[in-house]
């Protein structure tokens, strides 16, 4: 405090501050009664879109504290026609994130090449035991519906590659129907 304001003036200043604070609205958020207004794209929890996952393990390997557990096995798809080649694909058995280790860096989401992981604003998943913080793929999948839609493109931005491809397919004349039953998709 500056000396020029006189000795003891701080006493009244203090009283003034507390009194003026009292007349203003308090900043308390009544959380369980009133849900907080989180900013859009808040990073609450990581959701998994299981259909998109190819078990490529990129997320698990990039994770700085190794909190993603992935088990998968290979499944052989028989050749669609005589003399064709058999194909194999990965089937996801287990996908779990240990949220007691996760530090919410979001690297797994950035690194996923197939858009299988998303940020969800959901945050109410506390547990009484730290061992229950490992959430399996069904739980991670339940959070998918809380994931907000991707941000809209700018008004005059180019159409996304996926949309272009779909549009091209729809506008081009139909090709001859497939001759055999489609065992492959």
């Amino acid at each position, binding site marked *: 405090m500056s000396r020029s304001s006189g000795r003891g003036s701080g*006493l009244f200043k*203090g*009283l003034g*501050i*507390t*009194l003026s*604070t*009292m007349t*203003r609205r*308090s*900043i*308390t958020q*009544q959380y369980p009664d009133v849900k907080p207004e989180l900013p859009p794209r808040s990073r609450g929890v990581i959701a998994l879109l299981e259909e998109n996952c190819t078990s490529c393990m990129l997320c698990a390997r990039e994770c700085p504290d190794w909190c993603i557990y992935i088990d998968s096995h290979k499944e052989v798809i028989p050749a669609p026609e005589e003399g064709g080649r058999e194909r194999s694909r990965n089937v996801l058995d287990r996908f779990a994130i240990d949220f007691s280790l996760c530090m919410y860096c979001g690297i797994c989401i950035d690194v996923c090449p197939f858009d299988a992981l998303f940020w969800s604003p959901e945050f109410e998943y506390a547990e009484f035991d730290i061992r229950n913080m490992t959430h399996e793929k069904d739980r991670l999948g339940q959070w998918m519906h809380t994931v907000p839609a991707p941000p809209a493109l700018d008004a005059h931005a180019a159409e996304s590659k996926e949309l272009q491809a779909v549009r091209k397919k729809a506008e081009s004349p139909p090709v001859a129907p497939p001759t055999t039953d489609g065992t492959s998709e």
Partner: protein
Amino acid sequence: MADVLEAAVRLIVIFAAFLTLPLLVGQLEHKVMAHMQARVGPMYAGGFHGWAQLVADGVKFAQKEDVVPDAADRTIYRLAPALALIPYFVALVAIPVGPGLVGQDLEAGVFFVLAVMGVGVIGTLMAGWASANKYSLLGAVRQVSQLMAYELPFVLAAASVAMAAGSLGFAEIVDAWEPWWLVWQLPAAIVFFVAGLAELNRPPFDMPVADAEIIFGPYTEYTGLRFALFLLAEYVGIVLLCFLTAVLFLGGWHGPFSDSWVWTLAKAGALSFVVVWLRVSYPRLRADQLQKLAWQLLIPVALLQLLLTGVVMVAW
């Protein structure tokens, strides 16, 4: 028979006030302090803005185990809360709220109340001594040294107004009171209020229970209902101090429009708001600052006020 009945009714009314007014002050403190700190305070107990918080606290205290330390002086330890609380109740009996609205109208009411209030500190000293805990003892010693320093300005300030009214009775003082006394007796009023706060250990004079240094001073070892009694004593003390200040210095039931007990209650209520306001605004005083404030500021001011009162009385 009618006398006994009347005395019983008066005592019951005072006992009811003794139990409810401190809770009102406590709730006021919860809420005012919260809002001064940009919080909302208790919101759940009782449904509407946590009005029943202190009732809930009381239930909690009643459920707790009453622990007595092994090394404690058991009898004194158990007796201390009662000794801290009862003097305030006895003092309340003599405080008038309106004309004729008093437990027992004493001729030397001011003397009686000030003397009885001083007894309460013995309860605290007993608690600190009997707890067999160094923090308790330190707190008790601090409490006693604080009382020694502040009892003097407290009494001197009260003496000034008693001298001005020419009486030690509360009713006579209020009758003699006139609005210009607000200016004439202002230094005495301030000294009285500040010294009273210090006697009650209210922040910023709460060094005896400074929780950052000596846990909770004399009350460190207390749990459950006995601890609650100490807390109740503190809040009854606030009620008592506010009524005393209102009756002695603010004209009691005198007010604009008409004289009524409502004015006494309103003045005491406003003063208890000030008590909370001071608590929120100021940090705790150190031991040396406490003593300095009492001996170098409050006592000289009280003595000068006494002189001024005497001069005005003689010259009038």
